[in-house]
């Protein structure tokens, strides 16, 4: 996947059919991070359980909305066009932010499934099929994240 052109708020990417298939399959996995992963505070006392319940409820609603948005975005009829050698897809800046949130959720969610290894020191060696899939999804999500970040942040410089 490469950035073909950035025009104001719109970013056009070129990708192969295989990349499109992988990207869509990855996005289908959202959401993966358990709601209990997030905490509002480490130290604020009193209504901690109520606060946590409210946080999880709010997060759950936001996720449903984001899932709906990204599904509509990626499966819209005019999203992908056949170019000369590859598929072309155009996203706005806001749509890329949605995709980044979803892809990062998939990366972090798979990392949690792998037992939160310290990948800065050494990546785990997957032993089971599930672990191999989790590791592959984690790295693929990072690959697409980097593509989108390079496009928007390069443009932001």
């Amino acid at each position, binding site marked *: 996947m490469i950035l073909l052109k950035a025009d104001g708020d719109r970013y056009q990417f070129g990708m192969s059919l295989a990349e499109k298939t992988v990207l869509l399959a990855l996005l289908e996995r959202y959401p993966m991070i358990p709601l209990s992963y997030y905490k509002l505070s480490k130290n604020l006392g009193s209504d901690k359980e109520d606060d946590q319940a409210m*946080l999880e409820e709010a997060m759950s609603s936001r996720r449903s909305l984001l899932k709906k948005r990204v599904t509509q975005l990626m499966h819209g009829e005019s999203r992908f066009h056949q170019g000369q050698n590859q598929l072309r897809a155009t996203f706005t800046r806001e749509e890329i932010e949605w995709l980044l949130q979803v892809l*990062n959720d998939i*990366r972090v969610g798979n990392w949690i499934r792998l037992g*939160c290894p310290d990948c800065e020191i050494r990546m785990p060696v997957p032993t089971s099929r599930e672990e191999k899939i989790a590791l592959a999804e984690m790295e693929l999500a990072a690959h697409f994240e980097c593509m989108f970040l390079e496009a928007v*942040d390069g443009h932001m410089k």
Partner: protein
Amino acid sequence: MAAANEPVTIQPDIEKDTDSRPKDTLDPGYIVICWNDPVNLMVYVTHVFQVVFGWSRQKAEHHMLEVHNNGKSVLTRETLERAEFYVHRLQEYGLQATMERDEQ
């Protein structure tokens, strides 16, 4: 007394509301902290800080490196509501952020 066909101006009751908003809601005594984890990409964390806080690349990178090297970074000091807002925004992006009472 105003006649029936004359417009009547009703003044709103204006009272100082001291009950519905706790004092600490307006107190900028809450800090928003981002905690380190080994999974979020450094470029991603920098990007999120830029988007959520509207910071320059330089400032965002400074805080990202603080998270990376020191385990955490205090990102901002806010009222209760604003601190909650920022924590939610950072968590939407999958970052480990919390709010704490500023003891200083």
